[in-house]
C-alpha cells in the first residue's frame, strides 16, 4: 500500500495507508483508522490528515526580545529531551535588547537530525505581532497558540491577563504559555516540573512552586482548547540525549585543550564563549579579560601564549578584521594562537545576530605577508570539541595561528548528542625541554621548520620574539643573502608539515552518485538532510564536506561527477577556493545569504531536483 503516514505509539511503529487502514507492530490489520481500538481508547486524538507521534516535529516559539522566548524555548527543549527525544533548537533574533520579533525553533525527532526546519507544526506566539509575523510558518495541519483568536486551528489563551488576574503576576505568562505548549504536544507534566525546578532552583522554592502552578494552569487551559486539533503525543522513551550548544561545546573544548587565557571584546555571536568561561572561572581556572578592543584582545592572547599559556580570543568578522595584523604577528614570531571567528553576515556591521559562511576566504587569506596558518570549520557541536582541541594542538605543534571558523547558527544552536567522547580529544603539548639545550636559539632553522619553543622565565635560556625579520636568536636582521631567505623558508616548511596533518573531506555516497553536493562547516547536517530528501525523491546524490579549510588536504575529487557547491554566502567562496586548489569545475552553486542557515528543504528547493 502507499504509505499515507507513519506513526508511533509507545515506541511501536504503526503504518497507515491511503485507504485509512493501519498496520500494527505485529503486522495485523487494524481496520479503518478511525475505528481502531487504539483510537477509541482516547489515547490518540487522531483525525484525518493528522500524524500521531512525530517522526519529525517542529515547534516555534515567537515573541519580542525581553519576553522570554529563549527561556521558554530552553525549558521546552530540556523537557522534550527529558522524554527521551532528540531536539535541535536554533534561534533567530533581531539585534536589539527589547522589542522586535524573535523565534526559537525546536525540532523534535527520535534520532538526532540537528538541522533546522523552517515550517512549524505548533507556533506559540507570545504577542499578537509575533502571531502575524510567524503565522505563515504554520504547516497545513499545524496549530497556533496565541493570546487572541485570529484563525481556525488555534488555541487562544490570554497569557498575560490570566497570569496577572489568576496567578497574581504578569511574570508567569511565559510559564503559562509553556504549560499550554506542553498540553498541545502531549508532554508529561512531571518532567516539565523537574526541569522548572532545576531552572528556578536558585530563586528558591516559592518561585519554583509558582511556576509549576502557572504551568499546570496553562496545561489545563490548552487541553480544553486542544479538542480535535492536537494529534501529538510524546510517550516517554528510554533513550537520553545530551543537549549542548555550540558555544558551550567550544568553551568546554578550549578548557579540555588546556586553555588558560582568553581575552575578547564583546561581539555577537562570539561573546558567549568568554562569558561562559568567566561564569565558570572557579571550575575551569581560565583567566578571562574583556579587552578595550579586538586589537588589544588578540595581542594579550599572543603575549600570554608567548609566556607559555594556552591562549585564545573570540570574535566575529568586524573584530577579526581588527585582529588581522596580529594574525600575521603570530605567524612571524611563531607563537601559537587560537582565534574563534564566529561568522555573521557582513559587510561592515551587517546583520549582527544572523548567520553566514561569508568569511571563509577572509580567514584563509587573513594577514599580510606569507606564513603558515590553520583554519578549521567544525560541522556541529560534537565536531566543535574535536576541532577546537585540534586547533590548540596543531597551533602548539607548528607554532602558528589557528582559526576556528564557525558561525552564529552553530554557536547559538542547541544540539542533541548521544555522547561526547572526551577521551578522544587529548591535549598535546609541544614546549621544548630546556634542560637538554646548551645554546638556545629560539628560531633555530630545522628541517621541519619547527624550532624549540621555551617560554620566558622557564629556565636560564632567554626567549625572544620580534615582529621584524629576525635571526635565529630573534634579533632584527637585514641579512638579505642568508638569514632572510632561511627564515622565510623555515616558516613555510612548517606549512608543508602542517598540510600533511590535514584530513581529507568527508565523503557520503560519492561512489554511487553522479551528482555531488560540496559544502563546508556548519551546514553538514542540512546537507545530509538534503541528501535524504533527494534520495526519497529518486535523485541519487552524494556529499563531500570540508571541515579542514586551510591548508587544504592532499585530495583528489573523483572524476566523472557533477559537483554543486552549497554555501551560506552569496559568492560561493568554497567553490572559488577549491577551483584554485584542485582545478575542479562546478556544475552549479546553491547560495543562501538572507541571514538564515541552510536547511535540507532549502537546498532541495534551490536545486529543484
Amino acid at each position, binding site marked *: 500500500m502507499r504509505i499515507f503516514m507513519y506513526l508511533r505509539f509507545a515506541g511501536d511503529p504503526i503504518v497507515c495507508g491511503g485507504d485509512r487502514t493501519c498496520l500494527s507492530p505485529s503486522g495485523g490489520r487494524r481496520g479503518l483508522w478511525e475505528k481502531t481500538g487504539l483510537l477509541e481508547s482516547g489515547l490518540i486524538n487522531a483525525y484525518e490528515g493528522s500524524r500521531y507521534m512525530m517522526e519529525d516535529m517542529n515547534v516555534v516559539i515567537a515573541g519580542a526580545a525581553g519576553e522570554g522566548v529563549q527561556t521558554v524555548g530552553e525549558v521546552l527543549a530540556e523537557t522534550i529531551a527529558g522524554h527521551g527525544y532528540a531536539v535541535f533548537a536554533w534561534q533567530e533574533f533581531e539585534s536589539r535588547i527589547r522589542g522586535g520579533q524573535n523565534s526559537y525553533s525546536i525540532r523534535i525527532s527520535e534520532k538526532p537530525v540537528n538541522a533546522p526546519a523552517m515550517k512549524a507544526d505548533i507556533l506559540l506566539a507570545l504577542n499578537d505581532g509575533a502571531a502575524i509575523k510567524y503565522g505563515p510558518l504554520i504547516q497545513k495541519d499545524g496549530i497556533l497558540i496565541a493570546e487572541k483568536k485570529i484563525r481556525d486551528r488555534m488555541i487562544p489563551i490570554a497569557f498575560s491577563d490570566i497570569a496577572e488576574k489568576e496567578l497574581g503576576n504578569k511574570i508567569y505568562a511565559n510559564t503559562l504559555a509553556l504549560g499550554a505548549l506542553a498540553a498541545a504536544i502531549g508532554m*508529561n507534566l512531571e518532567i516539565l516540573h523537574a526541569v522548572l525546578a532545576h531552572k528556578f532552583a536558585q530563586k528558591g522554592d516559592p518561585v519554583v512552586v509558582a511556576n509549576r502552578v502557572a504551568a499546570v494552569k496553562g496545561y489545563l487551559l490548552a487541553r480544553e482548547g486542544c479538542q480535535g486539533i492536537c494529534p501529538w503525543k510524546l510517550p516517554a522513551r528510554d533513550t537520553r540525549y545530551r543537549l549542548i550548544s555550540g558555544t558551550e561545546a567550544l568553551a*568546554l573544548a578550549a578548557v*579540555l585543550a588546556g586553555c588558560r587565557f582568553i581575552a575578547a571584546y564583546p561581539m555577537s555571536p562570539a561573546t558567549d564563549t568568554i562569558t561562559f568561561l568567566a561564569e565558570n572561572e572557579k571550575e575551569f581556572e581560565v583567566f578571562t579579560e574583556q579587552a578595550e578592543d579586538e586589537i*588589544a584582545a588578540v595581542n594579550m592572547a599572543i603575549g600570554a601564549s608567548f609566556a607559555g599559556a594556552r591562549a585564545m580570543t573570540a570574535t566575529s568578522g568586524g573584530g577579526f578584521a581588527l585582529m588581522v595584523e596580529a594574525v600575521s604577528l603570530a605567524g612571524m614570531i611563531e607563537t601559537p594562537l587560537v582565534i574563534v571567528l564566529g561568522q555573521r553576515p557582513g559587510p561592515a556591521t551587517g546583520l549582527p545576530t544572523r548567520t553566514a559562511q561569508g568569511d571563509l576566504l577572509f580567514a584563509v587569506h587573513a594577514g599580510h605577508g606569507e606564513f603558515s596558518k590553520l583554519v578549521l570549520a567544525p560541522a556541529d557541536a560534537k565536531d566543535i570539541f574535536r576541532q577546537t582541541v585540534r586547533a590548540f594542538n596543531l597551533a602548539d605543534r607548528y607554532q602558528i595561528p589557528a582559526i576556528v571558523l564557525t558561525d552564529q547558527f552553530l554557536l547559538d544552536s542547541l544540539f542533541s548528542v548521544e555522547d561526547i567522547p572526551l577521551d578522544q580529544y587529548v591535549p598535546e603539548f609541544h614546549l621544548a625541554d630546556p634542560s637538554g639545550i646548551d645554546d638556545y636559539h629560539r628560531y633555530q632553522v630545522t628541517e621541519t621548520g619547527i624550532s624549540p619553543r621555551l617560554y620566558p622565565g622557564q629556565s636560564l635560556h632567554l626567549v625572544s620574539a620580534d615582529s621584524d625579520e629576525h635571526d635565529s636568536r630573534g634579533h632584527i636582521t637585514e641579512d638579505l643573502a642568508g638569514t632572510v631567505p632561511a627564515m622565510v623558508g623555515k616558516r613555510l616548511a612548517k606549512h608543508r608539515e602542517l598540510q600533511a596533518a590535514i584530513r581529507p573531506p568527508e565523503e557520503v555516497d560519492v561512489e554511487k552518485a553522479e551528482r555531488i553536493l560540496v559544502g563546508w562547516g556548519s551546514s553538514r547536517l542540512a546537507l545530509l538532510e538534503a541528501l535524504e530528501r533527494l534520495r526519497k525523491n529518486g535523485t541519487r546524490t552524494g556529499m563531500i564536506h570540508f571541515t579542514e579549510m586551510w591548508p587544504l588536504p592532499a585530495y583528489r575529487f573523483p572524476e566523472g561527477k557533477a559537483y554543486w557547491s552549497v554555501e551560506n554566502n552569496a559568492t560561493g567562496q568554497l567553490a572559488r577556493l577549491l577551483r584554485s586548489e584542485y582545478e575542479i569545475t562546478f556544475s552549479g552553486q546553491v547560495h543562501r545569504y538572507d541571514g538564515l542557515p541552510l536547511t535540507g528543504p532549502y537546498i532541495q528547493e534551490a536545486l529543484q531536483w
Partner: protein
Amino acid sequence: MVKIDDYKNDVPAQWCPGCPNFGILNALKTALTALKKRPHECCLVSGIGQAAKLPHYLKCNFFNGLHGRALPAALGIHVANPRLTTIVVTGDGDCYGEGGNHFLHALRRNPDITVVVHNNGFYALTKGQASPTTRVGEKRSLQIHGVEIVPLNMPAIAIVHDCTFVARGFAGDGDHLKSLLMKAIGHPGLSVVEVIQPCITWGTHPVSWYRERVYTLGGDYDPTDRKAALEKTMEAEERIATGILFLAASRKPFADCFRKEITDQTFAKLKPVSTEKIAGFLSSLRKGYIREDNSHSPRVGP
C-alpha cells in the same frame, strides 16, 4: 651576584651614534643590576619605533611586537607569568599615538608592570613627522605649516586616572633616571616613567636646550598631592620637572582576584583540567531532565 655585564650583548645598535637612547639603555641595565634582577627573570616588551628597539640591545627575554601594541602583549605576558619582571619600553608615537587606547586602559587595570616612554616629541624612525607630543607651531616633515593640533599630556592623564606611580626622567641624567627606574620597577602596580629624550638628528632643539630647562623635584615636593602633580605636568616649556611626579594611594593590582581565589601559578605550569571534571560538568549542565532513578514516572493527562 648580578653584574651589569650579565646584560651585555653584542647586537649592534641601529640608533644614531651619540643618541640619548643609549643613556636610557644604560640606566635600565644599571637599575636592573642594582635590583639584583637576573636577565632570565625579566621580560622587556616593546612595539615599533626607535625606543622599541631597545630590548635588542641588552641580554634578557624580550617581545618586540606590533606598533602600538606593547601594552596588551605585556599584559598577557604578565598575567601568564607574574613572576617575570615585565617592562614595556616604548615611545611617544608607539604608546600615546598608535597605542593610546591601550595606555588609557592600562591606567584603569593597574597591572604590576613598568612602562618606560621615551618622549622625543616626534616620530624619529619615520623621519621627523609630528607625534602626539609635538608642540603647537613646531614645523615637522609632514606638518609643513607647523603643528596645529594640541599635544597630549599623558602624564597628567595618568595622574587623573590614579596611576599609582608617575615619574619623569631625563635621558641626559643617567644616575637620576636609574634611581627612578629602580623605584618604578620595585613599585607594586602600574608605574609609568616618561623619559625626556632629545633627538640629535631630527630634533628642533639641541640637548643643551633641554639641560637648561630640566630640573629635579626637591625633597619639599609632595608626590601624593594630585593638584601639585598636575601643575608640574602643565608647566610652560621653560621648565621640565623630573622625579616622581605622583604616587596614588595603592589599589588592587590587575588580576588580583584571580591570583588570590583561583591560582597564583605560572599558567604554563598548570595541568589541563581533567576529563572527569569536564564530564561531570557536562552531566550537571542540564540535569533537570535526567531523572535520578531512570524510571518512567506516570503520565499526567488524558
